[in-house]
């Protein structure tokens, strides 16, 4: 999840539980990349300055969990120093942030890109200094093993497909669906939408998409747009939201319209924030596809492997869970 403002009554990973449910690699693909291929020099992480460039404000649960996980893993690994910057969703700022960290002597960079394209100047600067860049949660379109080391993250398209599966399951295959889109121009929005629609087209002829409107990943916009959609299409029976926040907004909207969320109108979303999983427990949301933000351990593990001489595959796709009526209560602790 990229623009995934999340919700949590408590800080993510509360109770010193650094990992939550730690990430599990689902599949790796692409060619391997070794130190020699990349042209990097051997480095002892405990002597290294590691830089982390976060893309969005930490007020989003997803981002908070991600940053926290990186910080904790850095401590665990025992790196000399961790620099953390936040680009506030601005590409130029992220470029400046990365260049700044390079200036301040970063030896290894973990980057959560603001955008898949356009980081070229920053990546070029890192390459010039021989600093490896590991991208997490969003893949950049540059050249693997030349501009960046590897990509760790979820498959957003797959998440969309799984959301379609979940929606099919909870509606019994017949529904008029409204989609709450994330912000325009964001590749997460595109992937989660394409995955969902492709899957519906291929598998579930009973699911009819009657409206798709952007609600910018925000709860209040999700609510406002859902309210309008419920008026304009009174026969809507299901809502698919690109993130949990909009789904939670939709819950309020459905209630305001005098209907029962999760019953009269099925709701499926993506992320796995604590509030959303709680809403499943409360019967208001039907299913949530997880998008795991806890990249810390895997990221540092990858770095260690890399410096140990192992080849790192281009794509390290993590496996995301799914929360539904059957497992939500039990797995509530895993939500972030």
């Amino acid at each position: 999840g990229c623009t995934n403002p999340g919700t949590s009554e408590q800080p993510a990973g509360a109770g010193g539980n650094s990992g939550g449910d730690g990430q599990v690699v689902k599949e790796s693909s692409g060619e391997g990349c070794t130190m020699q291929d990349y042209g990097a020099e051997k480095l002892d992480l405990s002597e290294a300055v590691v830089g982390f460039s976060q893309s969005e404000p930490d007020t989003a649960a997803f981002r908070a969990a991600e940053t926290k996980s990186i910080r904790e893993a850095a401590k665990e690994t025992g790196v000399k120093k961790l620099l953390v910057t936040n680009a506030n969703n601005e590409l130029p700022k992220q470029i400046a942030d990365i260049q700044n960290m390079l200036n301040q002597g970063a030896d290894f960079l973990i980057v959560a890109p603001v955008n898949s394209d356009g980081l070229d100047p920053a990546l070029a600067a890192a390459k010039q200094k021989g600093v490896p860049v590991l991208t997490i949660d969003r893949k950049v379109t540059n050249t693997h093993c030349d501009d960046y080391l590897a990509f760790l993250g979820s498959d957003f398209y797959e998440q969309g497909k799984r959301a379609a599966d979940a929606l099919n399951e909870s509606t019994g295959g017949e529904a008029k669906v409204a989609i709450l889109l994330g912000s325009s121009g964001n590749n997460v929005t595109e992937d989660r939408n394409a995955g969902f629609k492709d899957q519906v087209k291929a598998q579930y002829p009973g699911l009819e998409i009657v409206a798709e409107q952007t609600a910018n990943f925000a709860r209040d916009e999700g609510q406002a747009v859902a309210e309008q959609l419920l008026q304009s299409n009174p026969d809507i029976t299901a809502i698919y939201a690109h993130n949990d926040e909009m789904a939670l907004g939709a819950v309020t909207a459905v209630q305001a319209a005098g209907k029962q969320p999760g019953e009269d109108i099925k709701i499926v979303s993506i992320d796995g924030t604590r509030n959303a999983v709680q809403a499943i427990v409360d019967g208001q949301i039907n299913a949530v596809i997880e998008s795991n933000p806890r990249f810390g351990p895997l990221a540092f593990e990858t770095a260690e492997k890399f410096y140990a001489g192992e080849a790192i595959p281009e794509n390290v796709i993590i496996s995301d869970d799914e929360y539904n009526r059957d497992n939500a209560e039990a797995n509530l602790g895993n939500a972030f």
Partner: protein
Amino acid sequence: MRTPAETPPKRRTRPRRIDADWIRRNGVYVALVLLLAINVVFTDNFVSEGTLRLQLIQVVPVLIVAIGMALVIGTEGIDLSVGAVMAIAAALIPLYIGYGTLVAVLVAVLAGAISGLLAGTLVGRVGVQPIIATLGIMVAGRGLANLFGGEIKSIRDPGIVELGSGSVLGIPYVVLIAAAVAAGAWFLVRRSTYGRRLVAIGGNKRAAELAGLPVRRVLVTTYVLCGLLAALAGVLLAARSQASDPTKLGLLMELSAITAVVLGGTPLSGGQVRIAGTVAGALLLQLITATLIFHDIPDSTAQIAQAVIVVAAVYVQLGRKKARR
């Protein structure tokens, strides 16, 4: 003194017919009615109590903020901080809800007043240009809201929830509050000395100073009022969504509010405040949004359509001005 041999004052004939001039003066209402009519004819499911009621509920935050903004614009100012102030107010609610609903709401609204006081002082006393003073507050304010608001929080306090979704005699509280705010502002502008002073200052600040008006006090008061109203809007929005999201709440509200004010016929050059027009302007904006959603227009086309409609609506009421020559 000589007894004046005067010509009896000619009463200006007020045209009752609907002509270009009438449309100009009532442009926003015309546009509003027009868009409503178009929807009634062309939009499925539009004519229902629920839909109309929904528009009234959803317009509340913009409306309240726009009224504060109209006052500020009347002084030839502008307030870009309103969105951030909304976020601050909303962020305070969960923090103080432990002390009771009323305390939380009061603290939130008070924070808006303080922010307005800062803006008013910078503009009225220090003499900073309004746009830059309130821009600084907007940037810092959003940061502050994020800082002490932290992650998005759900609000479950029954008082707040009732405020956001309850109603009396079928009319939602939020709509009642907005109506009260509008009526109060209308009264203030039309009947109070403060209102007279405000437009005088906006019309010619130097002349107002020389006429002994308390220019600074009026300016400060105006920004405080605007801050208060923005905070109130933030509280109502949070109450309605039963959550407070410091990062996104009220984002770009300043632009919507200014648009509503200008659509309503208040010139940005100050010296005039039109409250009824502002209300209609906000409703028009809301209706545009609803129309685009009802027809499931994709984002790109929606933005272009919005641009065209807004310009057309302003043109209806201002475009003929030049023809006077």
